[in-house]
């Protein structure tokens, strides 16, 4: 087991153009499940590929287990990677796919067999050993790729969107399996995804990336409840945080905290809400509309109400909503980063 560290890691693909990854410094804890989360083009996969040794950094260093591995070939890094496409060897049987890293190590046949049995037992794919990858379902392929990754007990796992090729239902169960699996093997894992639900559900900590830079590192709760800047606030949560312009600062509040006035404890700020549409999603209702007060210039806002609340609303009406003052997040106008709370006098 080992931790992974990057020091000021930068990747510029074309000189003169903005870098794909800009000076990223991160440290994982040993055995941690760390998630790189960001929209496409945020540099999360490039960052992972530099850690794997598949991409050479323009500058900066990668350390695995306190050893500088920058410039070393992937095979000298004691890592295992699961690719988005799984990258199974199509001409080899499942058994030979999983045994391939062991053969490359020069492990004798008997120990190989034992290892493959251990890995396939862990992932419950012992019955697939003779099949070729094209005869497997998406979920089975993902397990085979995972088995190939764990079979030589690497010090670090790198997973590049391993669930994005599965259908929604399978993804939920595969997510759960991955978490159980990580608990059992306790190997430091870096997991790349653009899916915030995956990131929140699986990560010990989440690294939010945007345009090649780290915006925030924190537990799922921290990045959700205490976003470091307006990007994180607007990226996490669906629907994302409402952000309004309040003169010298931006003020944000989550849709689930933007509720009918009667439900919000004092001290609170009251905001007239013009409801345009209502999405009934079963367990909750999403109300989309505008803020009524003229000072917000008909700023769009969203409210999320549990379906168990008795209040009824209809589109096209105005209602008095409010947010508890403790739920307001303040962002500096210029840097867009979080700043100290202050009182607002909107009424």
């Amino acid at each position, binding site marked *: 087991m080992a931790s992974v560290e990057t020091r000021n890691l930068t990747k510029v693909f074309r000189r003169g153009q903005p870098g794909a990854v800009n000076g990223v410094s991160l440290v994982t804890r040993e055995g941690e499940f760390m998630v790189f989360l960001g929209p496409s083009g945020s540099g999360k996969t490039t960052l992972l590929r530099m850690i794997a*040794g598949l991409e050479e950094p323009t500058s900066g260093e990668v350390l695995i287990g306190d050893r500088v591995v920058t410039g070393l070939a*992937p095979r000298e890094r004691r890592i295992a990677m699961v690719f988005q*496409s799984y*990258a199974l*060897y199509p001409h080899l049987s499942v058994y030979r796919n999983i045994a*391939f*890293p062991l053969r490359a190590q020069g492990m004798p046949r008997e120990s190989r067999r034992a290892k493959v049995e251990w890995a396939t037992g862990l992932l419950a794919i012992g019955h697939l050993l003779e099949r070729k990858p094209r005869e497997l379902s998406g979920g089975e392929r993902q397990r085979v790729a995972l088995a*190939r990754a764990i079979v030589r007990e690497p010090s670090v796992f790198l997973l590049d969107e391993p669930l994005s090729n599965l259908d929604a239902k399978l993804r939920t169960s595969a997510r759960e399996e991955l978490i159980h699996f990580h608990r059992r093997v306790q190997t430091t894992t870096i997991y790349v995804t653009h899916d915030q639900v995956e990131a929140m559900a699986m990560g010990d900590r989440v690294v939010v990336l945007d345009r090649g830079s780290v915006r925030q590192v924190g537990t799922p709760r921290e990045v959700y409840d205490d976003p470091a800047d307006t990007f994180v606030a607007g990226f996490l949560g669906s629907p994302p945080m409402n952000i309004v312009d309040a003169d010298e600062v931006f003020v944000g509040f989550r849709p689930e905290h933007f509720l009918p006035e009667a439900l919000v404890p004092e001290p609170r700020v009251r905001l007239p809400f013009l409801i345009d549409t209502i999405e009934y999603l079963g367990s909750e209702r999403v109300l989309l509309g505008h803020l009524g007060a003229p000072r917000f210039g008909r700023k769009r806002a969203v409210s999320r109400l549990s379906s168990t609340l008795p209040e009824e609303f209809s589109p096209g009406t105005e209602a008095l909503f409010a947010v508890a003052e403790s739920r307001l997040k303040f962002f500096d106008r210029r840097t867009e980063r979080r700043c100290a709370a202050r009182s607002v006098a909107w009424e």
Partner: protein
Amino acid sequence: MGMKAQRALAGALLAPAVLYILALVGLPLALAFVYSLGDVRVGSTGYRFVGLENFRSVLSSPTFRAAVGHSVIFTASVQAIVLVGGNALALALRRRFRGRGAVRFLILMPWVAPISLGAIGWKWILDSIYSVINWLLVRVHLVNRFDPPMWLGDPTLAMLSVIVVHSWRLLPFATVILLAGLTSIPPDILEAAAVDGAGFWRTHFEITLPMMRPIINVAVLFGVIFTFTDMTVVYVLTRGGPYDSTQVLPSLAFFTGVLGSDLAAGAAISVFLVPILAIVAWRMLRVAARAEVV
């Protein structure tokens, strides 16, 4: 359009290709079979059926037996050289580097240039007096100035020369085919092999080559046909000599049938090519069919 009209149109559109094949491939082939069973000579007008007489005399001729051996050696050696060389070139050309386009173009040159021109160039390069290779070898004191190798005059060296020149000619074609096969391998798979700890040779022999197998089969089968039926290089460089030591089946058929006026014997010799080519063609169709499934 009605069913009938459609069928008529299909027939009309196919007709030129069918006519072309019948006139330029079917008819000569049929004639070769007819001639090989008769006593036709250049200039004669009659035709007398002689059964398998031509085949008997051809088979008993030492020149023919030697030519069969030469054809096999020629074809097998050229395929081996072209496969290894084409693979190496394809691997080199897959990498991005400055001027890759120019290098690709240069490598294709032997293929697009008329073979007679190229072969005449080689004839000078291998000439007994003006050979630039010998000039170079003399300069670096590897060979004696008064007894340089006779590239086209010594039986072994002549065979070697013919093999090298034909390989030079087929190499671009094989490279292009193999490069296509190489680039069709998803980069993920090679990266997975790198992460899994495989080095260059293991990746090449256990991942790359097996994944390229269908396309390698195509390259080999085309190469066999282009080599086994070809006489251009032999004709220009050695005319089958010295002492028939580079005589292959197509050149022997040409020299016997056309230049030696014994059309029947020439036809009998070329008919010997048919079963071998039929087997290759059948394999080729099977490989093509299998490649579609994968």
